[in-house]
């Protein structure tokens, strides 16, 4: 069951003697060789294409290592995809995918040809944007206190310190605020989705990161709608300027909208 591990688990940066593997960034439709410059992972490797019929894998040479998902490595991976994306519709590969040889990459293209072709058709001229929304909890609560009579009344009661009721009033207040916060959060999220829906092809909500985030979404957008999407994001972020922070990123390859399960196995 356990194969012997011959791979090194660190990535020695320079002076790498054995350059036998291929790091694969993405798949595009292209039938003639193309060079994307020395921008590859592991210190500016040359990025080029490996072909099968009208499909091409964007690769760079690499030693057979496991790439840790450090910021530096992830940025290198993304930079290549961004560069290629400027001209092509891409199917991004997951970070850290290394094949042993060019033949293995060709075999990937050959055996998955139909699925890649279908997805490339579907993703033609579509790009992804990421939108993370964080809130200023304190400000939202302050807002609630102004707008919600029940909460305001309880706060008053507590601040006037009517001894007998304080403890329960506090508990009640806590529960009320929590419930109101949940309501407000889903209203904000629904509102943002509603605003962006007309200019997006699809959207997907991911798990929020950390305790300030209320929305972590990806949107699939037609290239021709990029401007319109952009404007909508700005508009909705202005609407919530006081309360919410919008983290808007992209364009990305459609990471969240391509789901091809590759049958890969360890190559030792």
């Amino acid at each position: 069951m356990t194969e012997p591990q011959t791979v090194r688990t660190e990535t020695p940066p320079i002076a790498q003697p054995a350059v036998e593997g291929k790091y694969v960034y993405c798949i595009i439709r292209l039938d003639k060789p193309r060079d994307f410059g020395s921008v590859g992972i592991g210190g500016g490797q040359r990025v080029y294409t490996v072909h099968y019929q009208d499909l091409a894998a964007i690769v760079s040479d690499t030693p057979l290592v496991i790439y840790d998902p450090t910021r530096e490595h992830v940025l290198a991976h993304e930079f290549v995809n961004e560069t290629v994306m400027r001209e092509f519709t891409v199917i991004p590969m997951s970070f850290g995918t290394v094949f042993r040889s060019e033949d293995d990459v060709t075999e990937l293209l050959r055996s998955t040809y139909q699925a890649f072709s279908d997805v490339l058709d579907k993703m033609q001229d579509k790009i992804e944007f990421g939108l993370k929304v964080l809130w200023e909890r304190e400000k939202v609560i302050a807002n609630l206190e102004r707008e919600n009579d029940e909460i305001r009344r309880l706060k008053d009661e507590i601040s006037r310190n009517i001894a007998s009721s304080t403890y329960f009033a506090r508990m009640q207040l806590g529960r009320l605020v929590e419930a109101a916060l949940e309501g407000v959060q889903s209203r904000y999220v629904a509102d943002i989705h509603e605003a962006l829906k007309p200019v997006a092809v699809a959207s997907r909500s991911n798990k929020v990161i950390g305790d300030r985030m209320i929305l972590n979404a990806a949107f699939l957008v037609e290239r021709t709608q990029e401007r319109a999407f952009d404007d909508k994001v700005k508009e909705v972020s202005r609407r919530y300027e006081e309360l919410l922070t919008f983290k808007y990123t992209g364009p990305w390859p459609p990471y969240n909208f391509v789901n091809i399960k590759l049958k890969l196995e360890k190559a030792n």
Partner: protein
Amino acid sequence: MGLLTKLLFFPIAGPVAGIRWSLGKVQRVVEEELVDDAPVKQELMELQMLLELGDIDDAEYAQREAVLMQRLRDVREWRERLGMATAGGPVRVARESDDDA
């Protein structure tokens, strides 16, 4: 917590099989923690968020990232040692004969 309680009290009253069962369970829980990289990846995403928000600087990021990378490597090593699948490293398209390997 519950596990600790069982370990501390159950064996006193329980049969020998109970002790063995508890130890087996402890080992399983420990193994599950050792071989699960999801929490580390979650922490990595949170760390990246902190950097993007400007809550931490590059130096602190680098320092904390290094710790998380070491944990990822540890997880990988445990998975390998226990004969489990690991992400990363050279791959090839699975041969049709050994599908669903």
